[in-house]
């Protein structure tokens, strides 16, 4: 600043001695830089305040600008740049280029966030909205943006449902509010609402900002789809008056399995099998499978995990061209992403193109287009492959002596050779995806704007699979091919009217009225055939299979029609009020319940703008209190659930198929929305000019009329009926701090921390039911009034039956003929025996106590370093893989714990004996602590100095190295603690052996031309 003052003085002096001649045009040049680092600011906007006619100018890649004006000196300039405080500068002549330094603006109230159907300054919000810091996401190797959201903001839990390339995640915003309906948030991509996607088809590099709407004041504008939170994604666009910029981003990396599961080697397995056979038939001796000398000769045997997993490559390239003139701005990008899976023969690749365009036709009319066309290819892993990799005995070999594949597990538990399945089965999915949205905005009169938008989302995916005849999987069908295809099409029309009004200077209003409609249409078909003469044609000639499998097809459609309105009001920028209302009509509900109403109100008080607060603003620069209440809905139940549909079935008369139709469901005209009432109170504070920002939220959500598949007596002919029953609550606390610890020229350090606690409780299940259990052979969950969702249910292990205890404790083994070495279980119902069906209790919970993340960013000279730590604490996981690995039958490989199993000479009290016939019992033995803390990402970057870049003829060059998931602290014994087998709330935290999440190391480069 001092420099500028000196200049001004000098310039003023100069003016006094020189008679300025009036010229037609004054040309001003200058440079805009960051006040701390001195780096040029690219794209800052400069206008002449005193000349309305003159065009503004943007700074170029060196931060320089040139302006011309017909007005005479002195001139008042105004300079603006996103994230910086705008400044006014008086210019007295144009003899020198002016140097303008901008101060970064840390005040959160000036941050602009995208909300439903508009955008607002953070200071004006009455709702809880979190903005994701994209910086930390950029270097995480993730095929989809939503998988990189883990730890990004408070109150959002992200768990992968598959670690496969392009695999999905399950996201919970402020806990789970639905038991059986969907719990995933609604995504709004450039204004287009999308539900139930993996988003691996979108290029994360295209994203400009992600805002997560959490409380009802923010989400109620999305009505029947707002209950699970809303994730608003905005993609990159150019800026008006911005020079064309070409940016290349590229990275290459390698991914590895985080850890292997400890299973037995060949010698240990052979001993186990000997023990199991001996246990069944002691008369045949202790070496029924292999003799001791044969065992000694075995060695380690086949390591099936080593054979299946690999170091996998990942590459990514993106080229973006963006820029703008005075009436147009644009961004065009293309990207290619190619990721091999850590399981051989799996992978994912993606081509994307995007064009965003914004045109000011005249003062009144603006047109915009956002177009995204992508193609993805996935090589899928065979289903259940993780389980068979672990269970395949190490004594089996991948290949027979003649070089052909070993067909299957040679023992009683028959399953295919997993390596043959991985290598030879072909299962490819190709998807074409278009998301396009166009709008016209017309300012009818001043501040009254009509916006009409049309959009379409087209997704066509085709799956092709072939199982060759020469591996076990395809042996019985003699080659099996199938092709299936699904077409999803959704169109959207949104018409909104907004009006800004200021009354008597201090009252400002913003009105929104809207009418929207969205229709989703899905069609699918599948065909296949078996019994091939040759395996060469794969799925490309279904007619050459002699046995045709039943073809299938289906079609469905659902529609949503909505009316919406919102008023934002503020008085003197101190008191804010906001109210919204949306009315949704959904085809999915019963004829009596088609329409739902979703209101919200919110208020906030900007304390720092009060006069009495002035003395404190030196320390507390911003302070804002928020409170809101609103109603949102959930309609994720699938289509046609209220109708008494019929389904077809087949029987055979005279060896020919006959088609039958039977009733599927009892109709329910009363079927309606799930309704969530949410209360939120929050405080946002900025200290020391925004160097320390704190945000605190408490919320209470109560969801009523749960869409529950209520069990009904089987005597009706049906098992269940979807009804509105019961309620669930979530309450929680979210805390976010961000701090600029150092902002020196050479060294800077900032920290972000967030932590969130959510407590979930089932309040009522309806129909007088207190609890219900969902279970199959592998897992069991209980949903119980007064308890949270996601409770594991099962038996409780109580030691191992020892010699001499058969008479006294044998009845606690659940075995017909108990023997020493059997696991003992607690007799929970107290009837004197253990029965696996009735002696069950709650044995664990899948919901965490809290989640947190901590990010530290450092810059030192040209280096930048970012460390991102994320933790989930207090949840439990059901290790399904271990459960099957602890069946010491000798018919399949076993967990490493088998080394310490009960034998006549090793009276273990924790690990059972080997036996041919173990019954799988879901017990607390397989419930493990799922707590983890992991370094999600470390990135070290270096930005080359001017000397190098000008030598290379480019504008900037940054290189970086990053590690994703390099270090994890956890006691979980499975592949990875970030795991869940599905999106279903009542069944979360079950690790059925999903494709493991990898850790990866990347090297990348960012070049601006």
């Amino acid at each position, binding site marked *: 600043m001092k420099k500028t003052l000196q200049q001004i003085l000098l310039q003023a002096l100069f003016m006094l001695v020189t008679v300025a001649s009036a010229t037609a045009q004054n040309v001003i040049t200058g440079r805009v830089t960051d006040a701390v680092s001195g780096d040029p600011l690219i794209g800052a906007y400069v206008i002449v305040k005193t000349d309305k006619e003159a065009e503004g100018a943007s700074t170029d890649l060196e931060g320089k600008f040139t302006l011309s004006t017909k007005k005479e000196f002195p001139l008042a300039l105004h300079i603006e740049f996103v994230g910086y405080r705008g400044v006014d500068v008086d210019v007295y002549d144009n003899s020198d280029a002016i140097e303008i330094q901008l101060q970064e603006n840390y005040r959160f109230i000036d941050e602009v966030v995208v909300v439903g159907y508009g955008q607002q300054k953070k200071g004006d919000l009455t709702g809880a909205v979190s903005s994701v810091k994209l910086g930390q996401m950029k270097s995480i190797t993730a095929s989809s943006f939503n998988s990189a959201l883990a730890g990004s903001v408070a109150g959002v839990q992200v768990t992968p449902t598959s670690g496969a390339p392009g695999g999905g995640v399950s996201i919970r915003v402020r806990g789970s509010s639905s038991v059986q309906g969907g719990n995933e948030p609604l995504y709004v991509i450039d204004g287009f609402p999308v539900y139930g996607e993996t988003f691996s088809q979108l290029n994360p590099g295209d994203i400009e900002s992600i805002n997560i709407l959490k409380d009802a004041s923010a989400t109620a504008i999305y009505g029947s789809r707002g209950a699970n939170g809303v994730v608003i994604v905005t993609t990159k666009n150019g800026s008006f008056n911005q020079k064309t910029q070409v940016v290349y981003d590229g990275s290459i990396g390698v991914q590895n399995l985080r850890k292997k599961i400890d299973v037995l080697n060949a010698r240990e397995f052979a001993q186990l099998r000997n023990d199991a056979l001996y246990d069944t038939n002691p008369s045949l001796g202790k070496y029924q499978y292999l003799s001791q000398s044969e065992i000694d000769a075995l060695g380690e045997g086949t390591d099936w995990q080593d054979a299946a997993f690999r170091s996998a490559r990942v590459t990514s390239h993106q080229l973006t061209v963006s820029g703008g003139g005075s009436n147009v701005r644009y961004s065009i990008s293309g990207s290619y992403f190619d990721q091999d899976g850590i399981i051989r023969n799996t992978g994912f690749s993606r081509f994307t193109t995007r064009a965003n365009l914004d045109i000011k036709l005249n003062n009144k009319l603006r047109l915009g287009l956002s177009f995204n066309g992508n193609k993805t290819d996935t090589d899928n892993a065979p289903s259940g492959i993780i389980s068979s990799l672990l269970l395949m005995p190490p004594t089996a070999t991948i290949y027979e002596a003649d070089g052909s594949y070993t067909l299957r597990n040679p023992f009683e*538990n028959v399953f295919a050779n997993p390596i043959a399945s991985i290598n030879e089965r072909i299962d490819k999915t190709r998807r074409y995806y278009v998301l396009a949205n166009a709008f016209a905005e017309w300012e009818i009169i001043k501040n009254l704007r009509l916006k009409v938008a049309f959009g379409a989302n087209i997704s066509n995916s085709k799956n092709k699979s072939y199982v060759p005849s020469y591996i076990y999987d395809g042996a019985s069908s003699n080659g099996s091919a199938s092709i299936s295809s699904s077409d999803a099409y959704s169109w959207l029309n949104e018409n909104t009217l907004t009006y800004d009004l200021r009354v008597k200077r201090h009252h400002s209003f913003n009105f929104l009225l809207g009418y929207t409609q969205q229709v989703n249409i899905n069609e699918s078909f599948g065909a296949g055939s078996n019994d091939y003469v040759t395996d060469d044609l794969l799925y490309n000639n279904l007619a050459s299979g002699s046995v045709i499998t039943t073809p299938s097809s289906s079609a469905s459609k659902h529609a949503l029609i909505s009316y919406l309105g919102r008023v934002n009001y503020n008085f003197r920028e101190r008191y804010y009020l906001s109210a919204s209302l949306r009315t949704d009509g959904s085809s999915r509900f019963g004829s009596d319940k088609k329409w739902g109403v979703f209101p919200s109100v919110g208020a906030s008080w900007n304390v720092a703008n009060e006069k009495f607060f002035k003395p404190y603003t030196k320390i507390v620069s911003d302070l804002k209190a928020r409170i809101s209440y609103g109603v949102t809905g959930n309609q994720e139940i699938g289509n*046609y659930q209220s109708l008494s549909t019929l389904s077809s079935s087949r*029987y055979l008369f005279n060896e020919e198929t006959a088609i039958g139709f039977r009733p599927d469901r009892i109709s329910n005209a009363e079927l309606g929305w799930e309704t969530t009432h949410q209360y939120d109170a929050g405080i946002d504070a900025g200290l020391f000019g925004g160097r320390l920002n704190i945000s605190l939220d408490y919320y209470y959500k109560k969801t009523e009329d749960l869409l529950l598949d209520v069990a009904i007596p089987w005597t009706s002919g049906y098992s269940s009926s979807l009804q509105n029953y019961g309620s669930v609550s979530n309450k929680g606390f979210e805390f976010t701090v961000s701090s600029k610890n150092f902002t020196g020229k050479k060294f800077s350090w900032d920290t972000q921390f967030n932590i969130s606690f959510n407590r979930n409780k089932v309040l009522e299940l309806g129909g007088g039911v207190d609890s219900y259990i969902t279970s199959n052979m592998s897992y069991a969950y209980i949903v119980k009034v007064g308890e949270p969702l996601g409770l594991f249910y099962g038996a409780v292990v109580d030691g191992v039956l020892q010699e001499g205890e058969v008479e006294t404790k044998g009845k606690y083994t659940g075995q017909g003929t108990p023997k020493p070495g059997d696991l003992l279980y607690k007799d929970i119902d107290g009837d004197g025996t253990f029965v696996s069906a009735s002696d069950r209790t709650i044995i664990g919970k899948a919901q965490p106590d809290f989640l947190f993340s901590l990010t530290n960013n450092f810059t030192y000279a040209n280096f930048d370093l970012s460390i991102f730590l994320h933790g989930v604490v207090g949840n439990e996981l059901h290790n399904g893989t271990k459960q099957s690995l602890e069946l010491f039958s000798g018919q399949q490989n076993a967990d490493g714990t088998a080394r310490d199993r009960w034998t006549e000479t090793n009276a273990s009290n924790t690990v059972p004996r080997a036996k041919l*016939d173990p019954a799988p019992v879901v017990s607390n033995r397989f419930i493990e602590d799922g707590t983890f803390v992991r370094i999600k990402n470390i990135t070290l970057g270096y930005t080359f100095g001017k000397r190098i870049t000008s030598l290379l003829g480019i504008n900037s060059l940054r290189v970086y190295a990053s590690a994703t998931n390099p270090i994890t602290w956890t006691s979980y014994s499975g592949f990875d603690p970030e795991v869940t087998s599905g999106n279903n709330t009542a069944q979360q935290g079950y690790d059925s052996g999903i494709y493991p999440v990898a850790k990866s190391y990347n090297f990348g480069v960012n070049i601006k031309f």
Partner: protein
Amino acid sequence: MKIYKILNNTAAVLAALAIASCAELEEKPESSMVSQQFYNTEADAVAAVNAVYADLNPSGQSIYNSLFQIGVEMATDDYMAGPRARNAHVRAISSLIHDPSNDRMQELWRQSYALIKDANAAIDHIAEIPATNISEEKRQRTINEAKFLRALNYFNLVRWFGDVPLVLHEISTLDAGHLNVVQATEAEVYAQIEQDLKDAENLPSVYTASDLGRATSGAAKTVLSKVYLTQKKWEQAAQKAKEVIDEGNYRLFDDYADVFSVDKENTVEHIFSIQFKGNANFRGNSLASRSAPYEPEGVNGDYADELNVAGGLFQSYRLEDRRLEVNFITQMVSPVNGKLYVLSEPHFYMYYDHSVVGAQGQSSINLPLIRYAEVLLIYAEALNEIEGPSAVAYDAVDQVRRRAGIPALAEIEPSLSQEAFRDSVFEERRKEFVYQYHRWFDLVRRGADYYIKTLTAAGKPNAAPRHLHFPIPQREIDLNPNLKQNPDWVNY
């Protein structure tokens, strides 16, 4: 110019709105029917009743495709859970430690009532089809087919569970009054079964080729005779059996092996069979793979259904009994490596389909549920109870024995006591109908003492009087306050 532009813009926007406002909230499922649009024509009537047949063996473990074996027959002296029957519930039934939460038994209940629901829907709705759209003959036939199938299932239910709810109309509202049904007494259930079967006696006695496999008048009469027999209404049982015999529509195959021949399905001896066809977009008979061994390379058997050797069935056959080699196999040549595998125990073999070696899940061999041999044995048993072992009773049993290639009873045991003759008939049933879903009923018909004695002797010491019934599924008791557990099963 400006006004023109504004007008133009407004018009464009309005037009856009008009085009767009075509989203519709009324649901019209594209790929499934809604009940309001169905049950209007003769074709609909046939489809409605076809769906009831389809409930006999839908895909997965279904009543007549293995569930009967897994959930019922395991609790007898002749069968046990094989090495690859991993389900704890199945193993529990096999060793008679099952409880009211046993999922296989729950499935039997659930699937039976699902079939009854579809039968009720067919009976209710076919009656409402306008006369212009359906011939009276077709209307009666389809309704009676549905009644036959409903009776068949209630007959199972009443024998398995005792007093069960008697649901006779489609339940189409969700209120508790309709859902929480009460149990009928066994006598009421039997009365309804008899009524349905009497109606079903009006079914055609034969069908044209394309309808081969549908329920016939003979099928209704045979089941009715068995219903009488089970209730110890000996006279009526004998009379119904005799009607079937006298009508002459059925006779024994000359060779027992033909009972399980794909070429001879639904002919001669077969009165009512559960239809299977592999690799034909339908279903294979999964008993074939469930009983096939896994040791011989290339057979890929499941071996989940095992012969309970201790029961002594295998040894009880005479060596010359033709049924021995049809029903069992003791050694097998691998279809892959040609090696001979001597099996550690005899395996059931009647459903093994040689056209699908290595993929027995696709076996096309029907399950011959009701056949003429049983008519003869019902007749013999009923006559014996009425008048002792008469010559006619002897002849009925001996027709079956002679066909099996073993000496006639009349020749080797011509003067049996009534009790000894009864034992012989039951013994014949056991050998004739092995692995065909009859054993549990036959044991239970003879009472608790006999059942317990037989099972204990067969190495299943847990058998107890309560096992003459299965427990009402716990889930049903939990959901429906009107249901009561079978008294024998309270506290188990």
